């Protein structure tokens, strides 16, 4: 459903040129949960920006259902890492979740029911009329997820969404995301630099190399679902997969000293 073929991105020109993405080919099937993991500064965000239609690649192409992505596609939502900046501080939670629905031209009744359903799904029904800055970081990111869900995308892309919340909140948010994924049946492309997170969440983990990045390995995660922070992470298969992903990052020939923040 979501395809990248020979994606290449170069910033600048001439002698200042920086090759952020070398040659990236990856596909995500409908309903699949794919994690992309790689060291910081490996071009993960650049890749997402191309997929979201916020920038165009230097060469190669990204496509959604066979259609080339030129601008932000209608059936796609993106959750940014910086929850504090991606929510509009002048709008209440309700208005923040509702604004994309207005743009879609939904009726007032449809908007209200969607907003209440999705905000309820992330457990913030009580906070509909509060402002984002009155909420904790984890709650703000849940609002951002609710906004993405209310948009009713077929593909949900997430750019290190849990990287700046504390560990406990992060575990809660991971479980929340898995529940939502099962409930709303969306395709998820989840970018992270956390190996454990990628194995815990994904059906498949794509490991990116340092930039200019390419996919150095794909690992299929055949852990049973539903998953659970305690039992899944205690599963010997989990540590197996985790080791495989880690090793593939470390054996990455271009980076003798692995830069994994873990």
């Amino acid at each position, binding site marked *: 459903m979501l395809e990248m073929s020979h994606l290449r991105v170069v910033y600048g020109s001439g002698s200042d040129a920086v090759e952020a993405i070398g040659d990236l080919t990856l596909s995500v099937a409908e309903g699949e949960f794919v994690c992309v993991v790689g060291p910081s500064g490996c071009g993960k965000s650049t890749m997402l920006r191309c997929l*979201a*239609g*916020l920038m165009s690649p230097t060469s190669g192409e990204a496509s959604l259902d066979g259609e080339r992505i030129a*601008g*932000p596609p*209608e059936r*796609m*939502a*993106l959750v*940014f890492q*910086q929850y504090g*900046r*991606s929510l*509009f*501080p*002048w*709008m209440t939670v309700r208005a923040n979740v509702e*604004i*994309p629905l*207005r*743009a*879609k031209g939904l009726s007032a009744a449809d908007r209200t029911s969607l907003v209440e359903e999705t905000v309820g799904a992330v457990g913030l029904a009580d906070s509909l009329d509060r*402002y984002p*800055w*009155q909420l904790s970081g984890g709650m703000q990111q849940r609002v951002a997820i609710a*906004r993405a869900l209310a*948009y009713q995308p077929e593909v949900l892309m997430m750019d290190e969404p849990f990287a700046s919340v504390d560990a406990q909140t992060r575990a809660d948010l991971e479980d929340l995301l898995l529940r939502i994924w099962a409930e709303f049946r969306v395709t998820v492309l989840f970018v992270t630099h956390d190996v454990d997170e990628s194995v815990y969440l994904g059906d498949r983990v794509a490991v990116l190399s340092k930039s200019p990045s390419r996919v150095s390995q794909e690992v299929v995660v055949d852990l049973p679902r539903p998953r659970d922070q305690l039992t899944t992470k205690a599963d010997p298969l989990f540590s197996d997969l985790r080791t495989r992903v880690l090793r593939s990052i470390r054996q990455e020939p271009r980076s003798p000293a692995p830069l994994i923040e873990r």
Partner: protein
Amino acid sequence: MKWRGVLADVARFGVFLLLWQLAAMALDSAFLPPLGEVFRAFADSFIFERIWSDVVPSIGRMAAGYALAAAVGVGAGLMIGSNWVVRRTTGPVTEFLRAIPPPALLPFAMLVFGFGLSMKVFVIAIGCVWPILLNTVDGVRGADPMFNEVARVYRLDSRSRLRRVVIPAAAPQIAVGLRASLSIALILMVISEMVASTNGLGYFVLQAQRTFRLDDMWAGILMLGIVGFALNAVFVAGERRVLAWHRGMRAASDASAEPMEAVSA
């Protein structure tokens, strides 16, 4: 506790008036009439005889010029702020125009618009437009680029992007410009009435001096002070309502950034 503070301020103000009175008595100069006479002149003139003939027309002119400046300044500022080609092209021209002391444009305005209402409105508007325009440009440019990306990802059309994202994001900075322009509007209203008018507060004050009614002159100055104070108070109250989110957000981020401060304070 709060009432004691207010009472103390009232007392201090009383001391200030007393000093004025003593100075007036000691100098015994026609230039500094005793307070009683100033207050009597104030009551005679402004309760309520001259409210309609001078105060209201003055405020009306000011409001018209200010509103015009706000509309043009915010409109042009949004356009210039969101387009870098326009911004660079108009840069030097706006730098020069805003550097002209606004009263210097008074003769030009009298030339083109004559001595009537439109002249005063023009002068007030052209003086007020620059702080509003430049602050709007800064507000648009200084807005978090993330807001724009979110708006693009969720495919907001350009109208709702402007109305619901660009303008609110720039609003705190626009308010700074609007506030700076408020006192400029007052100044230009007074000057334009001094130079070319047959009523209004500026005219009243200057005429009082020329005919040596110095108690009236001081009463007029007092009235101008009151008008200035009231306008500012109204503005601040409005800003608090409209930008409540901004104050709340700042308070929230201060509290989380400096938890120690909050405890010790």
